[in-house]
């Protein structure tokens, strides 16, 4: 029945050594609703979600499922009760087929442990058809796009007749159109009386698809409200305990000399004819959908990829395309999109991460000067307000916001001239976001050139002096001042798509 409570937790607490992750939290999911769970990173959202999905067992309180008290000890037990978690970092086996992934752990057999592949594939095919998926059950999951992989996880929830589906930041790596598709599937689940828990940082999504919002802060329940009664301001206040004055700070415009100029840079299959320049003190926004080639342009400038064509001018003089080492020595630094894979060595401490690219500065005859490393660490911990227990704490254990600050500290400690930030606030909570935005403004005012790549429109509009739009591997719009509006950016990105065939025709001629 719609509106009936399917799953609820009452007074649940969960402690980890030295951390109280959840304190006396109550939460419930009703059939046919989308219930948002919000809070800053470290507020306890993930812990709560993992309690629901059977990954953690609570220390106190009780879990009620369809009116009876239950003990969910493993993800398997959660699944048997129809509770499924769609992970942010998807939990699929890339080498297995779609069907095998959907039914992993309970594959049908013909007896004696021999797989019944026909049944496996036909069962999976039915679920995929019902969801309107265009890939086959036998397709290897590793060949699918992120959006399609997410569909496989949703198919898994369908296959097990889930009554509660928990989405953990599902739109983090989706394009706008993929997001629309996801939302229509969520609406469909909702119509079939599935209870949905929706974890997200993105306010516009919360207001678009959710019915109720529960906010956590520091492991404590801040309240549950009907989305219709909430505003961005009230939710923000609940999340961070105060009202944010403004989400974005733009640096004062005080531009100096040109730092970098790119002419006709191209890389086959990725991007073509990339030309732009950026000046000291300028924040240049680069907006485009995921897959437009933005990150690839950044990686080419930093030397991770080699360009096929083009010229590069650094402070007015032409230079060859650098290797990452040469780029660092020039002061051209990249804070990549995937912090954990490319930005940091997650197994090392914050101190070691900061000094890693500049070991020459912190050593003599190859012997490290620990004291100077620690001084630098301490300086950045204070100026960037990094929350960490000490110089050796593994950065892998820190929140996304604190990790990003370490990435920035790494580059800042060697006087950069140009900083390229690729999705600088992805997966970062509201509080840390505004700190990073303020930092971008401060750095620009100190004369640094900054390129901000982002798929979050408010962010690009909020921090940039000038915005370039990119689509399908080419720049197609430049906006400054009054022209920097949401409508114009959307228009630029979609206009290009329509005219891409004519562009190709031109190129051919």
């Amino acid at each position, binding site marked *: 029945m719609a509106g009936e409570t399917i799953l609820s937790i009452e007074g649940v607490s969960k402690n980890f050594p030295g951390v109280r992750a959840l304190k006396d939290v109550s939460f419930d999911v009703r059939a046919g609703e989308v219930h948002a769970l919000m809070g800053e990173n470290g507020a306890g959202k993930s812990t709560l979600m993992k309690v629901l999905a059977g990954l953690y067992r609570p220390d106190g309180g009780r879990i009620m499922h369809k009116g009876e008290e239950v003990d969910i000890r*493993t993800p398997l037990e959660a699944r048997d009760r129809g509770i499924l978690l769609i992970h942010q970092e998807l*939990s*699929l086996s*890339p080498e297995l087929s779609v069907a095998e992934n959907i039914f992993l*752990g309970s594959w049908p057999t013909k007896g004696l442990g*021999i797989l019944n592949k026909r049944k496996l594939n036909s069962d999976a095919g039915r679920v995929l058809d019902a969801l309107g998926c265009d890939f086959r059950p036998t397709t290897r999951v590793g*060949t*699918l796009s992120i959006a399609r992989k997410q569909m496989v996880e949703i198919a898994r929830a369908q296959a097990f007749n889930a009554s509660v589906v928990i989405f953990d930041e599902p739109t983090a790596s989706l394009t706008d159109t993929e997001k629309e598709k996801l939302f229509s599937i969520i609406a469909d689940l909702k119509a079939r009386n599935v209870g949905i828990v929706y974890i997200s940082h993105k306010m516009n999504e919360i207001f678009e698809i959710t019915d109720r919002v529960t906010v956590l802060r520091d492991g404590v329940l801040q309240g549950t409200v009907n989305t219709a009664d909430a505003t961005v301001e009230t939710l923000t206040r609940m999340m961070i305990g105060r009202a944010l004055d403004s989400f974005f700070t733009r640096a004062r415009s005080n531009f100096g000399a040109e730092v970098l100029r790119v002419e006709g840079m191209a890389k086959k299959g990725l991007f073509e004819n990339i030309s732009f320049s950026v000046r000291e003190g300028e924040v240049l926004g680069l907006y485009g959908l995921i897959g437009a080639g933005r990150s690839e342009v950044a990686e080419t400038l930093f030397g991770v990829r080699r360009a096929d064509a083009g010229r590069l001018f650094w402070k007015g003089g032409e230079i060859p395309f650098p290797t990452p080492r040469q780029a660092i020595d020039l002061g051209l630094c990249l804070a990549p999109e995937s912090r954990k894979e490319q930005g940091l060595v997650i197994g090392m401490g914050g101190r070691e991460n900061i000094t890693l690219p500049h070991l020459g500065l912190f050593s003599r005859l190859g012997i490290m000067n620990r004291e100077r490393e620690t001084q630098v660490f301490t300086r950045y911990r204070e100026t960037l307000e990094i929350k960490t227990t000490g110089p050796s704490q593994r950065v892998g254990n820190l929140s996304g916001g604190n990790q990003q600050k370490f990435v920035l500290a790494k580059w800042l400690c060697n006087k950069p001239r140009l900083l390229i930030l690729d999705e600088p606030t992805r997966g970062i909570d509201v509080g840390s976001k505004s700190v990073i935005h303020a930092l971008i403004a401060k750095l620009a005012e100190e004369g640094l050139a900054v390129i901000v790549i982002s798929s979050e429109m408010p962010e690009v509009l909020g921090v940039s002096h000038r915005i370039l739009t990119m689509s399908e591997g080419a720049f197609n719009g430049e906006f400054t001042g009054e022209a920097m509006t949401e409508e114009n950016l959307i228009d630029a990105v979609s206009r290009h798509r329509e005219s891409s065939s004519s562009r190709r025709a031109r190129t051919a001629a």
Partner: protein
Amino acid sequence: MTQSLTQPALSGHKGMARTILLRSHIWLFLLAACVFFSVVSPYFLTVNNLANVLTQSAFIGILAIGMTLVMINGEIDLSVGATLALACALAIGLHNGGASAPVAIAAALLAGTAMGLLNGSLVALSGMHSFVVTLGALIGIRGLVFVYTGGNALLVNDFEYTEIPEVYLGQISLTAMIFFALVLFFQWFLTSTRHGREAYAVGDNVEAARDAGIRVGRHKLINFTLCGFLAALSGVLLSMRLGTAEPQAGRSWELWAIIAVVLGGTRLKGGYGDMWRTLGGVLALAVVQNGLRLLNTPNYVELIVMGLVLLLALGLDRIMLLGTRKGE
């Protein structure tokens, strides 16, 4: 419908054919090696020689089958060479001591299986990496062999024992036939049984496998046990072929088995591979070794050449991998 969701997923027959070609580098390499040695040596391309290569490849080949299972799980078993020596010594020792051949063979197989079970239990229960566990087992089991043989080679008294594998299908020996039968069986096992397919899930994404309710520890234990059994089987076949059990038998064969598996293209970190690849890797090693011997290459030079060949074959794999990436 969204744009990227409606694009056809990368698959289809054309893609499949290309994938198969790109992923079967080891067979191309094997073919090239055969052509090369056929040209440079008149003795290579003879039925006799090729049959001999097959028989010689079977011992490391059977080790490599077990190794493939364990490696698809993302684990490794360094103790197979020692286990082979243990089974070899036990089979001959017990037979000499009065046990009938079937009893001695069964005891040897049982001992190897037990060693596999022990490795598997330690990996599953202690959470230690299998590299460490089986490195310990390698030393310990080799020690057992020395204790049992007193450090001397055991010579079989009953010469009929060495006649057991003297069964031929045309020129193909029983040993080689057993090897091929095992390749076929375990390839079927990997593709068509639940346990076999789950091996990939465990190696590919162990968290996902665990969350889906696969008992990962028990799963790995089964594969280590199978690996121990296969090592013992190879040891028993070797004892019959040689009629002696050297305490140093199978020394560094675990490395050759690993090399054969990796050469075939099975991934060291798990989740990917199969028995056809392993068969290709085993045959490639055997052909190169045989060819070098036909050319009277001195033993130490042979090792250098084998090392270079390995790098070459793996380089070929890398080039092909880049080819696939570009294609995708």
